[in-house]
């Protein structure tokens, strides 16, 4: 059964001012339980606006958001509750830390849920473990940490609510390649361990190609593609017109294939590419 379903959703910014623009137009799609979906789009394509509808931060001008079959905008209460079930971690979440210690900051979400102390403690420790924060850091001020550590604290703050759907907006933005890999790996690990549904928003195909089950491509407030990774990447030309690119390694492989090398063009990471080349060489070039 779909855990999250979006029906005919439209949203306009700045209604009644000279700056009125339609940010989203007639969006329809659904997310299955346990699925990992990537939402991809160029800057301004509406992807960040879209995800803020999933936990009722924005209310659609038209259409519905159904969580487990129920409209989350039914009442104030249902909207508030949806925020705990759909955990949204914004872009650059490290700028939203505010507590005096790391522990308290991670505990902010669970405390708002009204859980008891032992349960909060359990969740904080578990979330910290997921993002690789040591217990010795709990009593530090979040403002004394490095950029990468701050981000992990902020992500843990959302994970500690143990949401059924975890949404990450550009979790790897502004990090170096190793930092990106660390963050993406911990999201992957989180999903494997908890079986939660994960939605990851990005403008980089490289980041999501290896982790997502399905890709939703946004373009100018509309859904352009909603398909498997392989299928979406086969539309290279259209993606390019939307200002998007398929991963460089995939591009190289499809070029090689065109020149008659019998390689699998659906190769998205450098590691897979190395393996694929080895396989090819072992077989002796057929």
């Amino acid at each position, binding site marked *: 059964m779909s855990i999250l379903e979006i029906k005919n959703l439209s949203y306009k910014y700045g209604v009644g*001012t000279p700056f009125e623009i339609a940010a989203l137009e007639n969006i329809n799609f659904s997310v299955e339980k346990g699925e990992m979906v990537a939402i991809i789009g160029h800057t301004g394509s509406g992807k960040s606006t879209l995800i803020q509808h999933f936990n009722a931060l924005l209310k659609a001008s038209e259409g519905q958001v159904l969580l487990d079959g129920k409209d989350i905008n039914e009442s104030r209460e249902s909207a*508030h509750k949806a925020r705990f079930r759909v955990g949204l971690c914004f872009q650059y979440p490290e700028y*939203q830390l*505010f507590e005096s210690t790391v522990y308290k900051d991670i505990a*902010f979400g669970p405390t708002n849920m009204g859980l008891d102390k032992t349960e909060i403690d359990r969740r904080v420790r578990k979330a910290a473990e997921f993002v690789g924060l040591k217990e010795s850091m709990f009593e530090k001020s979040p403002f004394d940490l490095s950029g990468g550590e701050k981000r992990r604290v902020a992500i843990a703050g959302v994970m500690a*609510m143990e949401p059924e759907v975890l949404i990450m907006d550009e979790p790897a933005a502004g990090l170096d390649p190793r930092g990106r890999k660390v963050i993406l790996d911990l999201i992957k690990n989180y999903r494997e361990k908890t079986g939660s549904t994960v939605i990851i928003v990005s403008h980089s195909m490289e980041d999501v190609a290896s982790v997502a089950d399905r890709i939703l491509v946004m373009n100018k407030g509309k859904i352009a593609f909603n398909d498997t990774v392989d299928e979406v990447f086969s539309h290279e030309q259209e993606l390019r017109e939307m200002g998007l690119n398929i991963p460089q390694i995939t591009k190289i492989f499809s070029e090689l294939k065109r020149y008659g090398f019998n390689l699998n063009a659906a190769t998205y990471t450098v590691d897979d590419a190395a393996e694929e080349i080895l396989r090819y060489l072992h077989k002796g070039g057929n």
Partner: protein
Amino acid sequence: MIKDITIGQYFPGESFIHKLDARAKLIVVFLSLVEIFLCKNFLSLAVVVIFAIASVAISKISFKVVLKGMKMIYFIIVLTSVLQIFYNDEGTVLLDWWKLKITTGGIFTAIFMAVRIICLILVSSLLTYTTSPTTLTDGISRLLSPLNKIKIPVDTLAMMMTIALRFIPTLIEEIDKIMNAQKARGADIDSGNLIQRAKALVPIFIPLFVNSFRRAYELAFAMECRCYNGNKKRTRMKQMKFSWRDAVSFVVIAVMLAGIILLNYFFGAVI
């Protein structure tokens, strides 16, 4: 919610008022504010009301936007004018109940007060609606430049103002972002009693301050890297020039001033 505040925002446009020189606009706005308080009877008040409405119409900024921007101050307008009713006991008594006395004088002062405040806000908000912050501070610093002679660092002050104005939208955007992020973690900002609401602001203001300090450092470094020095005589990329439009607006405001004084003189004062 917070994005509804439009006072101080700039709406780019090509109207007569947009094209006025910033210095001329400042002088005209200042004079019209003086005129608003010079009005002593309904005829002269009508003149400034017509002036204010006509200015908005000429600027081509929709009345809807202007009125929406004033939403926050309706309360102040109502409060001050209601208080005025009881602070004036001239004229005929309309109602005398317990210690409260309502007189025609009180009613007139209340109406005048409300109309004056509305006109005041209309005219002054039109200034920021039609002038970009940088042009505005540029105009102010030019008008105040004689103060340089008595060692007041006008240019530095103007730069401070430019930076402050420049970061208002950034801060609003940032508050919005932080608020959403904390709401996403279940923070309840819009409900509860006063103390609960004040407490709910902590998770918003701490990151806001931290980020503002960080941004201030970055901006200061960036300015120093480009050898910014407040004391040097700085030149402008866009030179300001007076045009026929400015002359027209000066004439209008002067005629209005004369008219108001005459109307006050010939038709007597109501308040």
